[in-house]
């Protein structure tokens, strides 16, 4: 409204916030047919496609690193670079340069911390998701006429179960603001967090079969605006993994014990809830009948 007085915005104008997973642990170990440079080049062509679809489309790129997250590119800040005819290589080189700076910074931060725990190879998805949602709230505040926002997670790293609560918080906030979270997962196993994110917010979750054709998946599924999306036959979700993380060891479990007072999840039986301090009574009606039934079965 106040920001774009001369440009009326229709419902097919998008604000696409792309979260790029740069986690070196994933990209250095992934044996798939796609390395980080190929991945980035597919993504760059896709970003180019978005700004070419409508000159009012806005893109924001946020990098999801292993030790930090940061904004890489915001098309609303340098409009002359993107909308200028034939100057698209400027977008490419700018994003590439910023990504390289980011990866170096991320690596340095990692080197500073010397404690070793080889298990932890996740990236900070909760950080980049939170930033993306704050950015989108800012766009909502800018007035009644704003582009339709959506988030696209390009993720490859496995889920960091220590981020379970914060990722769920972000998902619910996105759902309340009606911001869909789309996911294109390029890792080897499915991501339970991102499946839930897409399912709860009404986004699309895709795990490409042939990674060398990544651009094709991006262009056919994620390029169209939300309004036109309703006319597409989108890939149907192959199930949603609703597993949770236990609060005690941060492992992903499909069965566990839940505190009846605060709903904390534990993988083992405890006498006392470590979250709320409740002491569990002896009246274990459910668990007892559960055990009995199990015993009679076997």
């Amino acid at each position, binding site marked *: 409204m106040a920001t774009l007085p001369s440009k009326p*915005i229709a419902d097919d104008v998008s604000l696409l916030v792309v979260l790029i997973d740069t986690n*070196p642990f994933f990209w*250095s170990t992934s044996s798939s047919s796609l390395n980080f440079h190929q991945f980035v080049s597919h993504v760059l062509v896709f970003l180019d496609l978005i700004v070419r679809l409508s000159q009012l489309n806005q893109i924001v790129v946020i990098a999801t690193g*292993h030790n930090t*997250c940061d*904004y890489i590119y915001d098309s609303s800040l340098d409009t002359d670079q993107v909308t200028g005819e034939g100057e698209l290589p400027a977008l490419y080189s700018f994003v590439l340069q910023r990504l390289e700076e980011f990866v170096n910074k991320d690596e340095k*931060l990692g*080197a500073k*911390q*010397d*404690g*070793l*725990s*080889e*298990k932890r190879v996740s990236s*900070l998805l909760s*950080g980049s998701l*939170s*930033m993306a949602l*704050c950015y989108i*709230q*800012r766009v*909502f*505040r800018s007035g*009644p006429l704003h582009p339709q926002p959506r988030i696209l997670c390009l993720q490859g790293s496995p889920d960091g179960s220590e981020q*379970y*609560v*914060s990722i*769920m*918080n*972000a998902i*619910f906030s996105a759902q*309340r*603001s*009606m911001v869909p979270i789309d996911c294109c997962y390029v890792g080897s196993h499915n991501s339970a967090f991102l499946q839930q994110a897409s399912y709860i917010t009404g986004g699309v979750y895709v795990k490409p079969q042939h990674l060398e054709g990544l651009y094709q998946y991006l262009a056919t599924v994620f390029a169209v605006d939300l309004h036109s999306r309703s006319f597409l036959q989108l890939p*149907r*979700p192959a*199930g*949603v993994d*609703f597993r*949770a993380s236990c609060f005690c060891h941060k492992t992903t479990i*499909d*069965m566990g*014990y*839940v505190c*009846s*007072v*605060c*709903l904390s999840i534990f993988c083992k*039986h*405890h006498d006392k809830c470590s*979250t709320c301090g*409740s*002491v*569990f*009574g002896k*009246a274990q009606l*459910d*668990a007892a009948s559960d055990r009995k039934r*199990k015993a009679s079965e076997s």
Partner: protein
Amino acid sequence: MNNSEKKRRNGEAEEENEEDVEDEGRDAWERTYTDERSWEALEEDESGLLQPIDNKAIYHSQYRRRLQSLSATSAASRIQKGLIRFLCVVVDLSKAAGEMDFKPSRMAVIAKHVETFIREFFDQNPLSQIGLVIIKDGVAQSLTELGGSPEAHIKALMVKLGCAGDSSLQNALELVHDTLHKIPSYGHREVLILYSALSTCDPGDIMETIQKCKKAKLRCSVIGLSAEMFVCKHLCQETGGSYMVALDEGHFKELLLEHAPPPPALAEFAIANLIKMGFPQRAAEGSIAICSCHREAKVGEGYICPRCKARVCELPTECRFCGLTLVSSPHLARSYHHLFPIEPFTEVSARQLELSRVASKTCFSCRESLLTPGTNKAGPCAACTKCKQYFCLDCDIYIHESLHNCPGCESRRITPAAASATMS
């Protein structure tokens, strides 16, 4: 676009504002004045001239006060919420419910707001259950069994809407007592009575029934629609509930919705318990399986019990074969922000920001400039005590009221992370 603007919900605070707009109690012009009381915010400067109102600053300071009072309550009392509740909602549909002092009638107003209440209740208490009871012609009748599906309750109430005869508090209490006394010990037993009548027509001694409810640890609350009654007050006092009489529709709604958030868990009312639960996967769309609940072949749309692999149609439920309680884990996760609240940010004055080393002077999470528009001077902002990042005031509100994550803290590794070992 405007539509989406309207539908979008920014946080709890805004949700309530939206609902207020729908109030039909007053004319629109009256409402704007009573709600905003804009004249009270006007201030004069030394020379008696009116000063412009800084709405944003006022809004933010209100929010900060709310946040401070919230964080002042100890962590323990914030967490100790009895989140597994078994609530019987008793709706008085005696002929008094047909009175038209509420527009169009008490009954219609009750039905409308009970619908909102049921949805809100399940949103805030994902594992809880509601049962509906109506009083009509002097008898109490169970409309729905205790269950977790909001739609089923709402539908049942709408079908049975219609009033006749006398009201009987005792009959209603006997019925809910029979329903609630057999639920597991970890559950909170609650009764919420929406009472229109000014009398009760009972078959026996109601005082005995009240003592029976007290013994069974039923927490009974009453919202009256006409005038205060001694027997209701006595019931609530004895059982630890609350008794209120609604003045008008808006007030009634307010009183009703106060029962949606979980009450503080009093140790005497329920025993904490560890319940074994399964978090089933949602089956792939298009897959065909026979469900265990309806014993029908169904395409897609189902969940798989993690222990015995049986298919069920809806969550939450209990597996028919192995007895495992099956819940959807996102349902549990909705309340986790109560458990791990982020601490209030500290206010950073313009001067502090000016002196700070943050070169960019932009909000960490949304990249909005922290300088006051038009000038090059720093404006007020907020800082996280843990990660020391600066945030604009709008993000501060959004982060605490809706997101419940600090973007700064989430964007760094606190514990020593994996290092060079796996790096080539």
